[in-house]
């Protein structure tokens, strides 16, 4: 599991959920509604799927508002 440092977390629709916005490597934002258990230190916990130079492919805990599960983020924006 890795922390997505670029994620911005806000209140969810119910107390057990939060909304996380993740900036991908191209600067676009993905919004995803997640469990409070998927948040640590106000950042999103995601799963690392793979790496290429400069980028990490992460799988979001749930499908994003635009329908994506996996996004490439800058490797400087994640922490183990």
């Amino acid at each position, binding site marked *: *599991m890795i922390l997505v440092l670029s994620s911005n977390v*806000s209140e*969810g*629709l*119910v107390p*057990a*959920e939060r*909304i996380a*916005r993740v900036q991908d490597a191209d600067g*676009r*934002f993905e*919004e995803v*509604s*997640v*469990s*409070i*258990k*998927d948040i640590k230190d106000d950042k999103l916990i995601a*799963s*690392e*799927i*793979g*790496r290429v130079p400069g980028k990490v*492919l992460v*799988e979001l*805990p*749930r499908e994003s*508002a*635009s*329908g994506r599960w996996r996004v490439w983020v800058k490797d400087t924006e994640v922490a183990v």
Partner: protein
Amino acid sequence: MVLTDREIQVAIQNQQILIDPPPSDIAAYSSTSLDLTLSKFLRVWKPTTVAGVDQIVCPATPGYSYNDFVKAYAEPREIGAEGYVLEPKSFVLGWTVETIELPPTSRLAARVEGKSSLARLGIGIHVTAPTIHAGFKGPIQLEFCNHGLLRVKLLTGMPICQLIFEQTLGTPEKGYKGQFFGQEAH
């Protein structure tokens, strides 16, 4: 393969399935499913049809925020002791009381399905997205639609949906933290 009631209970005991609060009654199980209950939280869509005004939502638009959309167009409601009446042709969001966690290494996924007792009245509890993926955590969001002709009352704590657990063939990539990235599956 679909898990039976006995296998679901074993998986809960082994923490391959985490449910909070856990099923308090054996009656929550059927032979191949586990009932979940309705929480008090609802989001009720406001009427958005105005004569002469054409409103369209496009989730593929860059910057689209479902959260902002729901907060603008769906009122938060809490179901009181009197219940909530789902009107014919209405569409409302709800959540289960129980939070579910399926660790990706459990080799389990699930499907949330309706209950025939409600289906017979015209109540659907999801709209074509029943999969609870391996790794899921949280309460399950439900999409209620009353397809019937009758007003139907929903009460907090009522059995509202059922989970059917299925064994996955293998562990998903995320369960391996990327260590097999780029390798061909065999």
